[in-house]
């Protein structure tokens, strides 16, 4: 679980990918997303994952990217089992090996989906994500809430650790007893965590008010995003990939092994 969060956090870098315009990067991830959604075939998914691995390698985030993929395995297994079990229960389904194959394909696609956005988050600062969202005409109020959420995640994780340390020092044993009593043992962890979060958000709200947040209707920005030649090349490439995928899927379908 924590591994996935790590894979969605920004890590500074100086690669070609890091320097791309965030909108171009978002389009790369979206393209991968669309292609994986359009095609269910394992071969296509594999190609997408290979392409993502290449991007991860270029951006120098390979290790963290692999961690995200690795951390997503529990979800993948869950999706596979759910698909398989549910379809086994419904009458009138194709033979078992086909269900197995299709359940696998569905779970496998999930890896590609997660992994594509992992590259985006690994190489894009919260600030850049914010700028991208503003460019997409999302009101700054929401953008700010979103980037604050991203920024505070590591702080929250640290605080959770401190709270767990405090309560364990008071004799709280989290992994003792049956699942139900175990759940109740999390109350001493969750209450301080929530109280601290609320307190922090009030403090943040006050600090923002002091700085006149939202005082002027029209906001200007110190840094503006500008598309350069390489960004445009990437955007054109991605749009082309999407068009080609759509073409071969719907207009002139081809058989994929």
């Amino acid at each position, binding site marked *: 679980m924590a591994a996935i969060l790590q894979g969605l956090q920004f890590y500074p870098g100086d690669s070609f990918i890091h320097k791309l315009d965030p909108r171009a990067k978002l389009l790369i991830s979206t393209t991968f997303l669309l292609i994986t959604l359009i095609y269910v075939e394992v071969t296509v998914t594999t190609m997408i994952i290979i392409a993502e691995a290449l991007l991860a390698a270029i951006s120098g985030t390979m290790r963290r990217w692999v961690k995200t993929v690795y951390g997503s395995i529990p979800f993948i297994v869950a999706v596979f089992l759910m698909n398989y079990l549910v379809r086994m229960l419904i009458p009138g389904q194709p033979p078992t090996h086909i269900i197995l194959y299709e359940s696998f394909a569905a779970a496998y696609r999930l890896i590609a989906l997660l992994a594509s956005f992992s590259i985006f988050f690994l190489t894009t600062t919260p600030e850049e994500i914010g700028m991208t969202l503003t460019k997409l005409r999302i009101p700054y109020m929401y953008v700010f809430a979103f980037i604050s959420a991203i920024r505070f995640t590591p702080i929250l994780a640290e605080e959770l650790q*401190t709270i767990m*340390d*405090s309560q*364990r020092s*008071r*004799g*709280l*044993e989290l992994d003792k007893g049956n699942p139900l009593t175990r759940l109740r043992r999390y109350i001493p962890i969750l209450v301080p965590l929530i*109280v*601290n979060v609320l307190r922090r958000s009030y403090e943040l709200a006050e600090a923002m008010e002091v700085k006149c947040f939202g005082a002027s209707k029209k906001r200007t920005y110190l840094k503006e995003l500008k598309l350069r030649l390489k960004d445009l090349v990437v955007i054109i490439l991605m749009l082309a990939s999407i068009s080609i995928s759509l073409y071969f899927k719907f207009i002139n379908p081809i058989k994929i092994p």
Partner: protein
Amino acid sequence: MIRFESVEYIYPNGIKALDKIDLEINDGEIVAIMGENGAGKTTLIKHLNGLLKPTKGKVLIDGIDTRKVTVASLSKKVGIVFQNPDDMFFSENVWEEVAFALRNFGYDEATVKRRVENAVNFMDLVNYINKSPFTLSGGEKKRLALAIVLAWSPDIIALDEPTIGQDLLQKEKLLQVIKLLNSQGKTIIVSSHDVEFIADLKPRIILMKRGRIIADGDAEEIFLNEELLRSCNLLPPQLITLSKELKFIGVKPKLYSPRELATEIMAKLQR
């Protein structure tokens, strides 16, 4: 007795927080761990009850290896009072908050009642037992945090930065409590960079810097070594500085209490 045998600790993110720590703390000692932020004080304290287990080397509490027992069983012996009380409160009222740990440790209700009463009396919180812990003031919260630990009466009490955000009166009260607990035979470990507070306590001082122990000695010895203190971004306590300034009338630089220094000055002046 606490023994650290060449302990090294590396956090999952690769930061080495403790490096070759060899340390022995005897029963009944008062020890202050000093050093700037990030020196490794809190990491060291978290090793006392097994919250953190050494990456290399071992920590022994009364001969028990911390890697081999649970945090809960060690906590009965070593009570840690953490820096920020807000990280522990969750109960409806002060009474329940103090009782929580006692119940975890499996005391029967009669003992829980007696021990909670003792602890709130001792820390002067009797008037607050029905109040929510969240409504207490900063100083009261710190007192409650200490009462919670004192309730199960551990042999070793570790306080992480107990003076942060406390006014002088609270610090004075805390000082009395620490001295009283020590006189009852408790081992006290205080991590702090509050030089004046530690000077009043006159403990054995362990000076840490970047995960290593760079000095270990009695308070006077450490506080007189200004160069050493400055290398840890600490300044000597005012009374040491004053006694150094008074050299010209023949006062010997020492860690005096205010009264001792006053007597010394009078003696030198009358001569």
